[in-house]
């Protein structure tokens, strides 16, 4: 599929103003808006190992440093290692009946690395017990981690302490007069002791830079280099703690865990994509991909492009939904979008300013607010506003240069609903769409070919890509409202800007 939709020939403008091909877009049914990877929130749904397909709870994953306890990958080529059986002779050679002793070693089917290459002894059990390499820096790392944990803890305490201070109903005399407790202490002559909880966390010993570097080993210059003994950069970075220089120090690495993520619309905080929990399943519980909701447009044919001369562009429109839709083609009108973005920004700035002003005036602690009445609440809590998402994405101006005019055809055309059975039914070629405008040149089931005239700008350079675009307005049938409230499906007009990269000018 990606060979058809992959090259960015036809791209759609997301609500946020970014331009992406249709398969990379989502469609939020609740907002009836297109969303892209930039305007959705990603959340980790589950953590699993891609080899043994085991789900791992996030706490356990953190403890195991996001690596699988059972699976190992090849230090040479980063593919997964498999366990192989090597049978040694009977455990007791004199007794013919004694069972054959089995041992296990690790082997890579891809590059033929195996655990015997680096001298790891074979193991008596298949499930492992593979020797763990000790990290030489583990003490230092532990020190640093501990001190950061302390910082975290002390900051948490400080926050709680500050909160308590603010909530405190009794305004102390010192707060009013501006004489602090520490100032009072000094006056009386008691040593100023800082709060026990706000003690500065102990920092680890700083690392010391050293000038002493080993001398350049002579063999580097005198003996020829065998590249097969030296590790590659990838191999070294796979084991950052040891960074082996030669291949005989490559040891198996625990496999990193993978995640399944769900995506949430940032405006309504509802899922647009949610995978099934089972790690071995590739299906989705929710998949609101734009590909299933927005009519798909593909280029069928294009006559040679000459600057300033109209050429014929035939497009194929496909209705992916189970509902009939009507498509109207309109001018791109990028100026309108720009204005919309500007207005939105201005109104938002004003809102922000208002909000911060209202907060400032209600700042607790200041004398005015106390005199007015301690029962006052910030205005934002009193007015019941709908749940606002924590982060909103501001739409931006569509940054797409267009250098080719499109002559807009008059009249809308109808696309019948998708019918999977029609693909196999030769007789259903007859369609009952009447009054087709003349720019519809062919149609079959839910598809139609539309003829357009495009005129590349007269002053185009030979090596420039010719880009044209238009707005497509289609009727979107939202069945979500119908199923929730037992009503008729809600129909609405949805508009999306589509851009076409038509290639380069043909020169005689």
């Amino acid at each position, binding site marked *: 599929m990606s060979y058809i939709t992959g090259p960015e020939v036809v791209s759609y403008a997301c609500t946020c103003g970014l331009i992406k091909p249709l398969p990379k877009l989502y469609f939020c049914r609740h907002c009836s808006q297109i969303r892209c990877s930039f305007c959705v929130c990603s959340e980790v749904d589950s953590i699993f190992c891609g080899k043994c397909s085991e789900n791992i709870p996030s706490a356990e994953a953190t403890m195991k440093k996001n690596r699988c306890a059972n699976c190992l990958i090849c230090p040479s080529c980063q593919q997964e290692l498999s366990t192989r059986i090597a049978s040694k002779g009977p455990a007791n050679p004199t007794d013919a009946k004694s069972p054959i002793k089995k041992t296990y070693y690790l082997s890579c089917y891809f590059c033929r*690395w195996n655990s015997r290459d680096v001298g790891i002894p074979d193991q008596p059990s298949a499930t492992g017990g593979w020797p763990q390499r000790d990290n030489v820096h583990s003490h230092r790392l532990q020190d640093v981690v501990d001190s950061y944990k302390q910082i975290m803890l002390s900051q948490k305490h400080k926050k709680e302490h500050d909160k308590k201070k603010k909530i405190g109903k009794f305004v102390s005399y010192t707060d009013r007069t501006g004489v602090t407790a520490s100032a009072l202490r000094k006056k009386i002559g008691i040593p100023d002791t800082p709060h026990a909880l706000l003690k500065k966390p102990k920092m680890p010993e700083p690392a010391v830079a050293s000038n002493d570097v080993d001398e350049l080993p002579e063999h580097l210059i005198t003996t020829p280099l065998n590249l097969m003994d030296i590790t590659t950069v990838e191999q070294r970075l796979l084991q950052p703690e040891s960074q082996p220089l030669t291949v005989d120090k490559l040891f198996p690495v625990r496999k990193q865990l993978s995640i399944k993520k769900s995506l949430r619309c940032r405006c309504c905080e509802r899922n647009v994509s949610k995978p099934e929990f089972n790690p071995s399943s590739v299906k989705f519980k929710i998949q609101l991909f734009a590909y299933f909701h927005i009519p798909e447009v593909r280029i069928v044919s294009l006559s040679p492009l000459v600057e300033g001369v109209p050429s014929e562009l035939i497009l194929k429109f496909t209705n992916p939904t189970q509902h009939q839709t009507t498509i109207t083609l309109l001018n791109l009108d990028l100026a309108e979008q720009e204005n919309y973005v500007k207005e939105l920004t201005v109104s938002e700035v004003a809102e922000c300013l208002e909000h911060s002003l209202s907060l400032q005036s209600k700042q607790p602690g200041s004398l005015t607010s106390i005199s007015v009445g301690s029962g006052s609440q910030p205005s934002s809590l009193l007015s019941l506003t709908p749940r606002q998402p924590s982060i909103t994405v501001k739409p931006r101006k569509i940054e797409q240069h267009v250098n080719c005019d499109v002559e807009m055809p008059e009249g809308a055309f109808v696309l019948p609903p998708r019918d999977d059975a029609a693909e196999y039914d030769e007789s259903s070629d007859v369609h009952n769409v009447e009054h087709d405008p003349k720019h519809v040149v062919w149609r079959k089931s839910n598809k139609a070919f539309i003829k357009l005239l495009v005129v590349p700008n007269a002053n185009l350079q030979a090596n420039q890509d010719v880009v044209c675009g238009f707005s497509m307005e289609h009727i979107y049938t939202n069945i979500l409202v119908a199923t929730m409230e037992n009503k008729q499906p809600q129909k609405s007009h949805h508009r999306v800007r589509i851009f076409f990269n038509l290639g380069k000018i043909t020169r005689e």
Partner: protein
Amino acid sequence: MSKNSIKIFPGAIVCEEAKLRGDITVGSGTIIHPCATIVAEAGPIIIGEQCLIEEQAKIVHRLPLDQQNKENTPVLIIGSHNVFEVGCTVEALKIGNNNVFEAKCFVGNKVTVTNGCTFGTGCVVTDEQILKENVSIFGAKCHMRESLDKPAPQTLQMETLVKLLPNYHHIRKPNCKH
């Protein structure tokens, strides 16, 4: 091109649908699948014992341009226990024992293959070189590494094929004696 002269030792399984051109000798225990292609263009090809040549594999004896027009006709000797997997193209000058040519790999006619080498899937090796023993070439960037031992022989697979292939294909009759 000279007339086809195919010599097959007893115990070899050579399917009739395999395309064999030129002077080719097949050692005992070697299996040549249908639709494998072996072309002895520049001189005879001698294939050792217990080799496995799979479908769509191509073994071509074709000399580099600068070595053509020489008096003596070179012989391409392929050792024993080599595996030529589906769709590989091998034009190597000389092939030792226990080598594996994985699916769709390409070995050019300036390469000398010693023993125990593995050419990974899709790897293209064309530069003039004599490969060390037990070298494996793998990955999109044709990384090389040296192993301690040779790849494991495909004994089980070969035993199955010896039983299975004659049931479904016409087999060329051996025409040589030990």
